[in-house]
């Protein structure tokens, strides 16, 4: 029986103090909060201080904004910032364009749709370093299969990774190859959520396939587009693996991005400078993320 029936008469004193516990205790946040707070938040905040120092891990001297000044004075460091933005813009644009194209193709009525989707998506799950190495071989200026294939159709292929003006774009192309699958499945999810009625109504109204794409698919998959843009832009800004595996930032500093600059400065022992690079990267991403945060909150408010 219930405990109360045995002790029902034992006490009649009002239980005035709050002694009921919520079934959803806030200490459930605690383990996650400790790990996240110590290993992510704390270093992030301390980076703001360390970016203002000359730092050897053992002691740090405050030098004000010198690191940042250096960052925007040294040409090879500025190059890194510019390349980061180029890389993010190029990969983001191409992922949206090809992702949407592939999504339309892979939601149309074709055979082996599921298999094709898997093929397009699988590179997302392959080690970036592995992809980088494989494409470095394929982009070899004379022996690489890409240039050999281009030769066959009479085009003499460029030195994809050896030409300083081209290297960062070549890496960006490989990133598109690797990441377009994720963009595609997000677009596919977006397109699939468009009610079929719209298409049928448009068909009855005599809209062509192209018109249906422009007036239905494109506007109604806007949430997916926004997601892909934000996701691939931030991913592009943070990219390290491919650049490192393919060019090590070379030739020279031609394809350095912020993430590889951070690593190089770290290896060279310029910890303060490296951390300043990290802070620059934070700022770039925050410029992207804060509008996103506002956008998301607004969308939630609408519901």
């Amino acid at each position, binding site marked *: 029986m219930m405990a109360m029936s045995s002790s029902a008469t034992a006490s009649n004193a009002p239980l005035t103090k709050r002694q009921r516990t*919520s*079934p*959803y*205790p*806030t200490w*459930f*946040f605690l*383990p*996650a909060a400790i*790990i*996240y707070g*110590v*290993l*992510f938040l*704390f*270093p992030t905040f*301390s980076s703001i201080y*360390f970016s203002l120092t000359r730092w050897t*891990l053992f002691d740090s001297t405050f030098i004000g904004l010198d690191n940042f000044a250096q960052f925007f004075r040294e040409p090879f460091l500025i190059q890194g910032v510019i390349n980061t933005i180029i890389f993010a813009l190029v990969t983001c644009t191409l992922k949206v364009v090809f992702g949407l194209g592939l999504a339309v*193709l892979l939601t*149309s009525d*074709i055979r082996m749709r599921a298999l*094709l*989707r*898997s*093929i397009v*998506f*699988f590179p997302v*799950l*392959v*080690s*970036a*370093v*592995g*992809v980088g*190495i*494989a494409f470095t*071989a394929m982009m070899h200026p004379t022996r*690489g*299969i890409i240039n*050999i294939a281009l030769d066959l159709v009479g085009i003499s292929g460029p030195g994809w990774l050896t030409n300083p003006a081209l290297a960062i774009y070549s890496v960006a192309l490989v990133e598109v*190859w690797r990441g377009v699958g*994720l963009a595609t499945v*997000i677009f596919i*999810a977006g397109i699939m959520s468009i009610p079929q009625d719209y298409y049928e109504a448009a068909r009855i109204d005599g809209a062509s*396939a192209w018109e249906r794409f422009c007036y239905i698919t494109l506007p109604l998959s806007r949430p997916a587009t926004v*997601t892909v843009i934000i996701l691939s832009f931030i991913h592009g800004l943070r990219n*390290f*693996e491919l650049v490192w*595996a393919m060019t090590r930032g070379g030739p020279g500093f031609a394809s350095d991005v912020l*993430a590889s600059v951070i*690593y190089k400065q*770290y290896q060279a022992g310029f*910890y303060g400078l490296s*951390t300043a690079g*990290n*802070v620059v990267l934070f700022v770039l991403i*925050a410029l*992207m993320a804060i509008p996103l*945060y506002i956008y998301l909150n607004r969308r939630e408010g609408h519901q």
Partner: protein
Amino acid sequence: MIALRRYGLTVIAVFSTVIIFIVPFLFIVLTAIKDRTEAARLDFSWPTNFPVWENFWTVISTRNFMLVTAYINSTLITVGAVTLLVILAAMVGYVRQRRKGWWNGLVDFLVLAGLMMPPAVVPTIWLLQEIGLFATLHGMVFIQVAYNLSFCIILYRAFIATIPRELDEAAIIDGARPLDVFFRVILPLLKPVTVTVIVVQSVTIFNDFVNPLYYLPGNQNVTVQLTLYNFQSQFSTAYNLLFMNILLVTIPPLIVFLFYNRQIVAGMTAGAVKG
């Protein structure tokens, strides 16, 4: 006529997609099973002999079976981190979804920040050294948990929203204490999303290169992705071995993908969209 042209276009589109996405994989496989001289030509040709086993054995045994050590390390890190992630993220997602409080805005903000912000590397290294976690496997486990929590919390929270609150209440009436409600009623019901979290995070953590590069130096701590990096210089003239290594590193995600491609795709899209 138009129908025929559209059909033609579709065929071309499908065909080029297949070429673009399959050829690099074929290239990796072909190169991995060639001998050294043929591989060095970097061409897309059928091998004349197939030293598959020799390539395999050489790669495995190089540097005192470094790849085997790496597999063990990567597996330990992945299993440890994913286990922690499942429990911790489900707990946060659960309370965040169920309970109203001033902290909800803060939690959402931190989740979003964790999703987008890159870590501050050097300060983290400094911190790890201070607390004795630098270059240790368990340190790496905690790092992976910290960096991947956000994604998992988002998935769990969205799923928990679909579990009726009356179920918690029935359990409470039945005499369940908070831990009972969570571990005996909610957690078992999260199985579908837990499978998704496990597969997506396993692949992510297994494939991670940057974080072990920074936080896990040392040959006995090497992870699978780092072997590629180490061997890149060692095998710079032996493309067959390098590509055999790539192949070996790619196989675990491939297997996971073959069995769980629905969950992976669903999880990654959901995580992306809700983020």
